[in-house]
């Protein structure tokens, strides 16, 4: 009974964190256009750079995340992805202007300037966030037979999060908040995700032990 409750809890938490992960990725991507615009403009190739780097980061993240998931998959590593992603998002808040000032002086062509900037600022956190998807599938899959179904569920949830992240950020966040405030919010949410994962795996264990003894 308690075991199945824990399973359900873990399942829900992994799904919710995957949803939030998808949300955060697209929110950061959308704000990326605003981060880069003061230095490289808002021409079509600035968006080209951002989207390219996000796709590249995600693809490699999927690859690494998948590999890691085959070696001792555990919730602590999973939670670490979120903490690491939060940490690696901070340079976007603190060093974006410094980085772009340097790059702006050295690279005159805004296409390559924006590409390099996007690479430096966004590859690390987004690659880590890409690792979340395959790893969460591994945590949820119980049998080979259900693996496709679980993967489908997870893509559904995380891509839905991405859709919502895009919408809410572009329609409301930029109107309500300053750019860095949204970024801080996203960092906080990532940290909360990591903490929730840890809590979900720990919580029933403490309660379960006394009961086991009493049996």
């Amino acid at each position, binding site marked *: 009974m308690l075991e199945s409750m824990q399973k359900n809890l873990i399942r829900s938490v992994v799904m919710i964190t995957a949803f939030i992960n998808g949300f955060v*990725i*697209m929110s950061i*991507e*959308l704000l990326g256009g*605003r981060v880069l*615009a*003061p*230095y*490289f*403009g*808002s*021409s*079509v190739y600035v*968006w080209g750079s951002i*989207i390219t780097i*996000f*796709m590249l980061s*995600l*693809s490699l993240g*999927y690859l690494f995340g*998948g590999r890691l998931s085959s070696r001792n998959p555990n919730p602590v590593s999973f939670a670490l992805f979120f903490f690491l992603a939060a940490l690696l998002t901070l340079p976007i808040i603190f060093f974006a202007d410094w980085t772009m000032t340097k790059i*702006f*002086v050295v690279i*005159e062509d*805004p296409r390559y300037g924006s590409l390099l900037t996007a690479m430096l600022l966004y590859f690390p956190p987004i690659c880590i966030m890409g690792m979340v*998807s*395959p790893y969460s599938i591994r945590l949820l899959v119980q049998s080979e037979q259900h693996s496709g179904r679980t993967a489908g569920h997870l*893509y559904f949830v*995380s*891509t839905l999060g*991405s*859709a919502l*992240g*895009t919408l809410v950020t572009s*329609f409301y966040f*930029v*109107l309500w*908040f*300053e*750019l*860095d405030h949204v970024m801080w919010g996203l960092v906080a949410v990532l940290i909360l995700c990591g903490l929730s994962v840890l809590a979900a795996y720990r919580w029933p264990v403490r309660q379960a032990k006394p009961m086991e003894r009493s049996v």
Partner: protein
Amino acid sequence: MMKNTKALPVLLSAVFAASLLLTLSVTAQTQLPIIHEERSVYRNIAVTEYDGRRCMLFNQNRGDKNQTCMDLRDPKKLVFHYTRMSLAGLLLNSEPKSVLVAGLGGGSIPMVMTELFPQAQIDVLEIDSAVVKVAKEFFNFKESDNLKVHVVDARVFIKRAGLLGKKYDFIMLDAFTGEYIPEHLLTQEFLEEVKQILSPEGVVVANTFSSSNLYDHESVTYQAVFGEFYNFKMPGSGNRVIIAQHDGVPERSTLRAPAQQLHPRLRAYDVTILEYPARLDTRPDWDTSRRVLTDQYSPGNLLN
């Protein structure tokens, strides 16, 4: 297969494809005779000709207004109010030696400037190379030794000009199409960069919005950077033109002499410069409690 359906690119390409189809199908049905269509990465450009006028339109299927028009019988004449109004900047600096125009359109403003001041060095910034092509082919726009077009985002050019220590006597900001607002060209930081390349006696002329929330936000932002400025409106024009200098603007009464002096030269362009000084106003008619737009906060498209 990993998660390869990230929303933005898919959304963008779908919207792009849909709008392309829509444009192709709708343009065939519009009543205006189209003499040329130019495809562009930013928007489709159509050139229409009717009633003795040739006009450049962006996304005309969505009912956008003309970007720029030329009177075919009198090509020198400035058809739009705001293009004529922007020459009011000359009242504050009547012999600019260097001119920067952000936003080409049909090129009427840079062409007038180079005719009026053949010795002046004029840089024109235009993000869309297709607009440059159409302006040259259909609107008599010509580059010369003193008149150069740069296909670049205005913010990028102006930031770099600042680093290089360039200065301009006359800066015209006209980069808004009315449909999509480049939000990074509305911010305090951008205007500071503009101010940095403005010569001590230079003048900034901005063709901006006269409607909605954005009017207030934009006015407050200009005020924060330039101090008091001239707010210039004309009856019959939906535009408002901001005229600003480094630290406020001179008394309106001092503008009568330059108006008299400019009048004979501007008459050919249908610019009634003698009327202008009386219409320049420094009194705020906007909500001064609005928030200044910054690179951190610039939701121009949502405020519009």
